[in-house]
């Protein structure tokens, strides 16, 4: 009979991982040798790890090392944002040739279906909001707040931050995870969030799909040309075509001269309030 009682389940797991102190590892080892239950449990735990280490049937991604020699992997994406802004400016000025040409960008992509969200039968907007809020604040979520100098070092430019925010929003995230763009997130108790993303022109990391006609509006952001966009793309997971929902979110994109800044906010925040946040960026 085995003189030692069976170790607690998490100890057995740590034993398998070689994470116990040497003396403890030795005690558990002696026990396991004489205990059929623990041997079986260990075998079962190892099977879990084997399953997770096994390659799936899909082809796993590879990295193309030739991109290392290039300065940038993709064309600078702020170009799209800037073109949209130019298009709006040109259209406002009376529809010049460049305006008409670039106005195509504002039209919806042919592969993308647009329809009012209210005609989308499967899920109401409210239901969707409830579902996503539950995901936004999962228990144990780790937020990261980098210091401003850390973010600026990654961004290679002075960081802009709002000096005005609607009541109740608190900073939960400020970082530059890929050293390409900065992301600042403010969260309210109701789970809604205001997100600020900043991209240095020279890195280029602003991605924005075309917006349908009428969804964008030229605005002045403290002397900088900006665009206010009412709505956003919505896509059911995991398949299905995206649809434009004018009540999903609204955003302001502007070019500070060094950075392309994009601020997204829930529509519970007034349009003028969102623009005020953008204007307050210092």
């Amino acid at each position, binding site marked *: 009979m085995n003189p030692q009682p069976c170790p607690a389940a998490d100890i057995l*797991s740590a034993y398998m991982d070689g994470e116990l102190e040497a003396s403890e590892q030795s005690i558990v080892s002696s026990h396991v040798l004489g205990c059929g239950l623990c041997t079986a449990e260990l075998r079962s735990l190892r099977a879990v790890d084997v399953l*997770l280490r096994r390659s*799936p049937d899909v082809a*796993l991604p590879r*990295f193309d090392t030739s*991109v290392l020699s290039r300065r940038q992997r993709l064309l600078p994406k702020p170009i799209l944002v800037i073109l949209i802004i130019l298009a709006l400016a040109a259209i406002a000025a009376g529809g010049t040739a460049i305006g008409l040409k670039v106005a195509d960008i504002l039209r919806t992509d042919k592969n*993308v279906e647009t329809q009012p969200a209210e005609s989308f039968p499967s899920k109401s907007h409210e239901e969707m909001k409830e579902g996503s809020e539950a995901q*936004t604040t999962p228990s144990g979520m*780790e937020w990261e707040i980098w210091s401003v100098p850390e973010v600026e070092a990654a961004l290679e430019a002075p960081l802009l931050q709002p000096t005005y925010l609607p009541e109740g929003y608190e900073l939960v995230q400020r970082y530059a995870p890929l050293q390409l763009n900065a992301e600042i997130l403010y969260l309210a108790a109701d789970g809604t969030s205001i997100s600020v993303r900043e991209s240095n022109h020279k890195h280029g990391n602003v991605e924005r799909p075309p917006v349908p006609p009428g969804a964008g509006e030229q605005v002045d952001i403290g002397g900088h040309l900006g665009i206010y966009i009412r709505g956003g793309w919505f896509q059911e997971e995991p398949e299905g075509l*995206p649809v434009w929902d004018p009540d999903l979110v609204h955003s302001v994109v502007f070019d500070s001269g060094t950075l392309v800044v994009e601020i997204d906010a829930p529509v519970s925040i007034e349009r003028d309030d969102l623009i005020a946040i953008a204007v307050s960026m210092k």
Partner: protein
Amino acid sequence: MTSAELVSRAQAGEEHAFAQLVLSHEHELGLFLYRRVNDPHVAEDLLQDTFLAAWKAIRKTGPDLRVRPWLYKIALNAARQWERRQRILRFVPFQPHQTTAQGETLPDQDDVQRVLRKMRREDAELLLLKTAAELNYSEIGALLKIKPATVRQRLHRARERFRALYGNEKETG
């Protein structure tokens, strides 16, 4: 050449040395990212971003760099950033994914992927960092900003949860 030498040369800007590091780690990071985001196309994009970010940043790292946990940190941040964008914008794609826009479907998921999707996201992440990534408790703790003792408890719960769900999957599947 040892891994330490490769790291040192990559830090000095030697592209060939960095490419060797990529070769050593791309499979495991690709597996980790695929399991984490559940989409091979997104995983591919994130793998590119991870290595490009690493190439850009490695010159700023010090001689004591432990390259595997560091790469996983970048990959994890890339995955989280991608995921956060999905959440924050409430499923608004920044770039409608081509496969979706063209009406194609993702490859059939395997049992492991289905089980991972049923788990709490943080448990699945922890499990992958231990199994696919083979990091130790202290490396995982540093990455997730939790104590190694917490890693131990949570990891075991995650393994038990995976095992139970996988058993159900096999019974029903």
